[in-house]
């Protein structure tokens, strides 16, 4: 059930960090003042100095929602830590340290029963909402209950519906017939105000990761305003909403009832935080470089113009970071469309692809990423490096091996297939064109099918009936996990059970028994070391199946405003951690 939001939820980073015991903004992690990539490996300008100043965010798009129960964007999961406290969270520290899931509102990780079906969390007894009301386990239960109303909150993940037992499959949420359904989700029990017990339908070893999604941040039932809750979520974090003009301007001010003692992964250091939305992306970069803006909230890196300026200036480059974002840009290869239902025909595509051009299409080594030889990026827990098709030794493609594979699949002079891509994403257009040219050199003729990004998964590439009928053998996509282990990364793009009639993300329609079995075991195995050992096995099998053509492990060039303190890349989000920022 691991689900990632392509184009949204990012994770991880390559950089290893020596610290593993830091907290509260990564005390104990390496610290530094400036230098290229210094915020990837350490904390830049560590400080607990309080300021009345404003940390200003600029955003070239808009949030999917500011409601913690209805958001799936990576930068929003990062940003919501300023006003929410889920049961669990990711440790605020750079490098591998930041991949650890740690308690936030909870006092410790979930305690799982012997049969793996119940998870018990105890919450801190002294956390308050912004109005001074004490947070109880019932508020956490209610927060999760409301996400079951998918007509009001369609955008967030649906893990609780999948995972929980009891009436979870039919529970309509607390709004329909409120007298009956308020606190009516039987799979969550709150035996006392500080204890919450989840009963699952089947064992699920990664449940602590699910509890780290903002959906478990408490919502007081009496203050819930349904669809309008996004305009003022009741804060339990270091800041609270002062004003919000939907999709335009958000202003946060310090929450007087927040305590650093109960929330060591966040800080309250500035007098105001603003987010200006729907800005011109180039204008954001210019304002960042002029020092007028503090942070680009999207966290996906600067645009081409600013990138050229930064990389050509020693001083500006020293103020930038180039982390791996956690995304894989890749192409699905449809295992059901002839002749690609023959593995050797699929292998021919992997051999023929020009990886240098692929990388260039996505923006080159700084803005695009590193050439990928595996499906999982290097920072997914349990990842192992391998290159069975020799991508790195044949960066411009291996026509000889491609032709041998074509012969083995019975099409020595090539075949014809379709390539789907999002026509409003210039990088993807360039990648599709580059792949078409590379395949053409070995006789594989392709037709390009461009579709709008907004309906790409819902109506075209993500509809197996459509791809099969239109002979679409290759479809471009991007992926990052909701949590940084193999299950989180692979389930939705490679498990046979994840194939769905619309909005499908296993576009390859891969239904390999070995992959399916390993993912099933992954979901139930409670021994983390054993579980993470499956990651490389699944990765290897998908590559052997040639069901995915990896493109690049995405990277982004971030500019670091020199006035900010406590700046570091939170590896799980692949962008700066927003919950600890301060001003010099």
């Amino acid at each position, binding site marked *: 059930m691991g*689900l*990632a*939001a*392509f184009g*949204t939820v990012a994770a991880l980073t390559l950089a290893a960090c020596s610290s593993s015991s830091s907290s509260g903004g990564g005390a104990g992690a390496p610290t530094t003042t400036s230098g290229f990539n210094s915020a990837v490996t350490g904390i830049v300008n560590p400080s607990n100095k309080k300021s009345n100043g404003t940390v200003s965010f*600029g955003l070239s*798009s*808009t949030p*999917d*929602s500011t409601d913690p129960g209805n958001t*799936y964007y990576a930068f929003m999961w990062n940003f919501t830590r300023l006003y929410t406290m889920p049961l669990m969270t990711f440790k605020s520290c750079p490098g591998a340290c930041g991949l650890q899931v740690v308690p936030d509102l909870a006092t410790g990780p979930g305690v799982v029963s012997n049969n793996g079906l119940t998870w018990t969390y105890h919450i801190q007894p002294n956390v308050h909402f912004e109005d001074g009301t004490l947070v109880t386990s019932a508020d956490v239960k209610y927060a999760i209950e*409301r996400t079951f*109303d*998918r*007509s*009001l909150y*369609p*955008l*967030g*993940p*649906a893990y609780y*519906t*999948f995972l929980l037992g009891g009436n979870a499959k039919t529970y309509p949420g607390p*709004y329909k017939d409120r007298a009956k359904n308020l606190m009516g989700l039987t799979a969550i029990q709150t035996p006392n105000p500080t204890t919450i017990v989840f009963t699952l339908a089947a064992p699920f070893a990664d449940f602590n990761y699910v509890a780290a999604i903002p959906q478990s941040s408490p919502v007081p039932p009496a203050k*819930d*305003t*349904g*669809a*309008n809750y*996004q305009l003022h979520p009741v804060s339990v974090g270091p800041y609270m909403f002062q004003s919000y*003009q*939907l*999709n*335009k*301007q958000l202003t946060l001010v310090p929450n007087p009832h927040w305590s650093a003692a109960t929330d060591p992964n966040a800080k309250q250091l500035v007098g105001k935080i603003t987010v*200006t*939305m*729907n*800005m*011109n992306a*180039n*204008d*954001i970069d*210019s*304002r960042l*470089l*002029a020092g*007028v803006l503090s942070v680009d909230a999207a966290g996906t890196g600067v645009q081409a113009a600013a990138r050229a300026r930064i990389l050509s200036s020693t001083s500006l480059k020293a103020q930038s970071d180039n982390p791996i974002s956690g995304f894989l840009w890749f192409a699905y290869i449809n295992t059901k469309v002839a002749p690609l239902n023959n593995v050797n025909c699929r292998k021919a595509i992997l051999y023929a692809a020009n990886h240098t051009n692929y990388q260039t299409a996505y923006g080159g080594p700084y803005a695009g990423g590193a050439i990928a030889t595996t499906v999982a990026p290097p920072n997914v827990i349990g990842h192992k490096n391998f290159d069975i098709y020799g991508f790195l030794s044949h960066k411009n493609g291996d026509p000889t091996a491609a032709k041998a594979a074509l012969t083995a699949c019975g099409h020595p002079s090539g075949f014809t297939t379709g390539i789907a891509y999002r026509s409003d994403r210039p990088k993807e257009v360039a990648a599709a064109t580059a792949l078409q040219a590379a395949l053409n050199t070995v006789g594989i003729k392709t037709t390009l099918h461009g579709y*709008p990004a*907004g*309906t790409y*998964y*819902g*109506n075209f590439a993500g*509809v197996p009936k459509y791809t099969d009928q239109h002979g679409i053998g290759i479809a471009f996509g991007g992926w990052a996990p909701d949590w940084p282990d193999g299950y989180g990364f692979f389930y*939705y793009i490679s498990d046979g059970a994840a194939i*769905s009639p*619309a*909005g499908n*993300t296993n576009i390859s329609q891969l239904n390999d028994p070995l992959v399916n079995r390993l993912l099933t075991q992954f979901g139930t195995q409670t021994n983390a070391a054993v579980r993470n050992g499956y990651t490389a096995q699944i990765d290897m099998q998908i590559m052997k199946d040639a069901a995915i053509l990896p493109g690049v492990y995405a990277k982004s060039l971030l500019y670091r405003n020199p006035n900010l303190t406590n700046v570091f890349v939170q590896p799980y989000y692949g962008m700066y951690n927003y919950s600890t920022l301060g001003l010099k």
Partner: protein
Amino acid sequence: MVTFIVRRLIATVFLLIVVSMITFAVFFLIPRLAGQNSYQLATQYVGRNPTRPAVLAIEQKLGLNEPIYVQYGRFLRGLIFGEHYNSGTSSNYCPPPCFGYSFRNQQPVWPLMVSSMPVTISLAAGAAIIWLTGGVAIGVVSALRRGTFFDRFSMGLALAGVSLPIFFTGLISLALFSYKWPIFPNVTYVGITSNPLLWARNLVLPWITLAFLYAALYARLTRAGMLETMSEDYIRTARAKGLPERTVIVRHGLRAALTPIVTIFGMDLGALLGGAVITEHTFSLQGLGQFTILAIDNQDLPEILGVTMLAAFFIIIANLVVDVLYAVVDPRVRH
């Protein structure tokens, strides 16, 4: 005149209904003709990896599984009578013209558009004053001093103004006067009621950028109109009657030359009020233009429908005003 206005207003309503039907058909009917069913339409509003119950819930909530005419009827009803929306914990009334409910934002469309209007109105009105006064004045002087340095220079500048797109002049003005020399730093819309000075200061660059394009066009139009008018027989007659030159130019020459200017001004202003898309995007101003871009990006059909109808409304009303002004500017129309 009253009959004329009433007749035009009735035509306006009719025209808006036609616009709404066409827009509705484009976004609601054509996808179906292309083979998409209501389930697929609903899928695009349910976020990533939607579950079937989630898609069905949205399909039902938005009424996508109902016949097109029922959906259109509901839209029209909301437009005229307003509509109630269930926010989960309460039922909210959206007064007319409601323009439907945004799939993406879970909010009624009309209040969202209203919140964007002050930005666009401020931008369009300020720029319009600059380009109208500046463009017409330059055009008149150029015509009267035909062939002089001023004429050649201003017409050269006008040619540049017409040729250079806003996303170029806007970026240059930002680069010079906001980033490099921060005379107008951090261009952000501030409400005129909250701080009039900051409101004006932050809009100076967008006003000038937008006005530069239009002023150039108006200067050339005015100049051409004035040159033609000033060579008419009645101007010679006016001069022969001994009227002062100022009266000849303003009352007889400019007045006649203004007729086409008024026409195009109405069209331009009307179109801009519907959203100065490029200017707003360049300067990160969150007006109706940015609202439109966002609505298209999100495939938020009710928002697209709303902003299309609003833009059509502005253009139609601007044309109505222009027609009325004709009568004032050109006495021949009155007869």
